[in-house]
């Protein structure tokens, strides 16, 4: 049976991607150039070197995994295959890292590389913004680790960003594939880097603001054990996605231009709905997105058919509603299908 030309194996690409992430992380620890002429400053306290993920969550919190302490470094790899996956960097004594020459470094690289096979990368997102991965920009993806002292007061300057304020918005149709690592709650994921991106809008600042509010609201709801709160969240999301809270940017732009088309699209979105989402709908969307209930159950709760509810979700920017999220889920699905033939 003939088919399209085979691409390099998916697993090989992923493995190489993970290895590259680890090589870059090690290079940062060793104080090597990141390829842009910048050089990370390695800072040491005692015999310990800390790695910090460069990207902050909405509240400015950072992960502080430590090489040599068997903690994990969540490196937002941002690559084609598995952004946001966990990569364990363990079993590398910092003193060895500091003193090693290139040969020893290569050995350590291999040692760490062997850990890749145990990487935890099961993902947990129920719905996210885009299923279309973008071409992997290895430099952008791998320059996000910085070294710091344990006190966290000193940081290297390589590509440091505060939140996403300095990051260019991703274009429509070029959004990242987004996943949520296992072990984190959906709220964590929504607050995370990829949670931001999953909303898939070029209006980055608005999305950041929205997601910050979402995080606060979720915490508030959890602390008060409130079941409500979804309405405000979804309403805000709906506004962000539809641009209804925005001024009529582009409405006076020349006919045929992108801005004009965008403005017209917003007008259509605004006119197609006469009111804000109802409590029931907002709650259903919130529960579905957070993985509390299935899409069908959410549709029931909203008083819609499944297919109508799918349209609501797509209008709100959620494009990937069904299907296996991770390689493990995909493998299980294939195994079960193949067992049908036995």
């Amino acid at each position: 049976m003939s088919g399209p030309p085979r691409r390099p194996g998916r697993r090989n690409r992923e493995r190489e991607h993970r290895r590259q992430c680890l090589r870059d992380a090690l290079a940062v620890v060793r104080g090597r150039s990141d390829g842009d002429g910048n050089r990370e400053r390695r800072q040491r306290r005692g015999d310990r070197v800390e790695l910090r993920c460069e990207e902050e969550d909405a509240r400015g919190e950072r992960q502080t995994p430590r090489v040599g302490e068997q903690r994990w470094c969540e490196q937002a790899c941002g690559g084609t295959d598995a952004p946001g996956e966990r990569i364990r960097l363990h079993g590398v004594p910092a003193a060895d890292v500091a003193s090693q020459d290139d040969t020893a470094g290569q050995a350590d690289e291999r040692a760490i590389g062997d850990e890749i096979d145990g990487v935890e990368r099961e993902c947990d997102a129920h719905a996210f913004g885009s299923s279309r991965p973008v071409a992997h920009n290895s430099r952008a993806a791998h320059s996000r680790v910085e070294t710091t002292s344990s006190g966290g007061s000193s940081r290297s300057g390589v590509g440091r960003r505060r939140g996403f304020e300095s990051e260019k918005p991703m274009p429509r149709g070029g959004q990242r594939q987004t996943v949520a690592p296992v072990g984190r709650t959906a709220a964590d994921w929504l607050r995370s880097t990829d949670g931001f991106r999953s909303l898939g809008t070029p209006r980055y600042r608005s999305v950041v603001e929205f997601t910050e509010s979402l995080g606060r609201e979720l915490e508030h709801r959890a602390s008060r054990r409130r079941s409500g709160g979804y309405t405000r969240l979804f309403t805000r999301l709906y506004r962000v996605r539809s641009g209804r809270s925005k001024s009529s940017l582009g409405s006076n732009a020349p006919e045929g231009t992108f801005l004009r088309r965008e403005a017209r699209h917003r007008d259509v979105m605004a006119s197609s709905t006469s009111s804000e989402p109802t409590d029931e709908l907002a709650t259903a969307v919130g529960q579905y997105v957070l993985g509390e209930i299935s899409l069908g159950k959410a549709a029931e709760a909203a008083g819609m058919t499944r297919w109508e509810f799918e349209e609501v979700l797509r209008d709100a920017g959620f494009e990937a509603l069904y299907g296996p999220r991770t390689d493990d889920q995909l493998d299980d699905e294939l195994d079960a299908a193949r067992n049908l033939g036995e």
Partner: protein
Amino acid sequence: MAKRYPQPVFLDATVVSNFASTDGIGFLTTLLDSPVVSPAVRDEIERGEHAGYEYLGSAVEVFGEKLPVREVPSEADDSDIRDRLDAGEAESILGVLAHGGTVATDDLTARRVAESRDLPVTGSIGLLVLGIEREQIDSKTTDEWLDGWRKHRGYYAPVESVTELLDDEP
């Protein structure tokens, strides 16, 4: 423990809807030895067709003969399933619990509920791969369907082409 048999395959509305959207219900019913749906899935698909999603009509036409409807006994202890899943998804899982077999769903929550009960779960792309390996469909068609599901059904899979999943890939 008695060996579990993979048949019948309880299809939920996500899988039926996917294949209906690409005119693939015929493929589905010939691929599987014993495809079944629960009464709630049948009812849901029929409601969808009545609501204007006409492509579901190809599924409605085969309910009963080519796609039998299997009654599902109500379990006393099924509230945890029904609290999170709709009637069709819940009955598909309860059906496998009662009759054995495999759940076919593309819903992540339904998958998790099934897996928490150690039930085998497959989905649309798994069935596509099975179809290729049984030479009942070619890879060009499966990629077209996959692309259609992505565009129109909100489907996601971490591969771009079904061919990446075939065992004979070098």
